[in-house]
């Protein structure tokens, strides 16, 4: 069975601190995809990144970075020098191969609060 666990329900840090959001997944597929989405207070879910199971290279985009480790079934998300605008709920998600029905298995989300 497929499963995504985001054990951190809520994280609160002071602005400019670095923060890491954890995501652990379970799947029997050899080909799969992992995603991160951001949901700011306005509600709209914003796609951040997709990573396939064959690409374990870490990804960096500005202050955002992602660490994919198949050995620990984790796809963690780090925000460097956090800002108040980073405050949001962040969701990790998993999908199977491209020829599946493209449905995502969602984590419960981590609420990130950045204090000024």
């Amino acid at each position, binding site marked *: 069975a497929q499963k995504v666990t985001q054990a951190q329900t809520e994280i609160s840090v002071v602005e400019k601190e670095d923060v890491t959001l954890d995501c652990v997944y379970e799947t029997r597929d050899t080909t799969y*995809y992992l*995603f991160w*989405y951001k949901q700011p207070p*306005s*509600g*709209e*879910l*914003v*796609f951040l990144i*997709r990573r396939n199971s064959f690409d374990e290279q870490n990804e960096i985009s500005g202050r955002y970075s992602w660490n994919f480790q198949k050995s620990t079934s984790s796809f963690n998300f780090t925000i460097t020098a956090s800002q108040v605008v980073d405050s949001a709920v962040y*969701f990790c998600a998993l*999908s199977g191969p*491209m020829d599946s*029905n*493209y*449905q*995502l298995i*969602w*984590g*419960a*989300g981590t609420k990130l609060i950045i204090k000024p």
Partner: protein
Amino acid sequence: SQTIHQWPATLVQPVGSPLSLECTVEGTSNPNLYWYRQAAGRGLQLLFYSVGIGQISSEVPQNLSASRPQDRQFILSSKKLLLSDSGFYLCAWSRRSGNTIYFGEGSWLTVV
């Protein structure tokens, strides 16, 4: 570029009244379309998805239904709303050959 819009943005409806939420996608053809619900403080629940006109798959049996009358239009409906239908409803799309899902702005529904 592709865009997705859904409306209305907010809705307050009495119990037993009907519901219609609409969603349209622009800038792409033959998308997969989705309706998700997010109850307050909870995660995302897939309600319906569609791979083509008139093709609807329901993930959770409930008081809601979906229709896809046109390629890029997806409608979420109910004949009689329940209090438990309150929540945040999100329409989304993905390319037919892709699995990245892109979301609309969402609709806040409060059933009173």
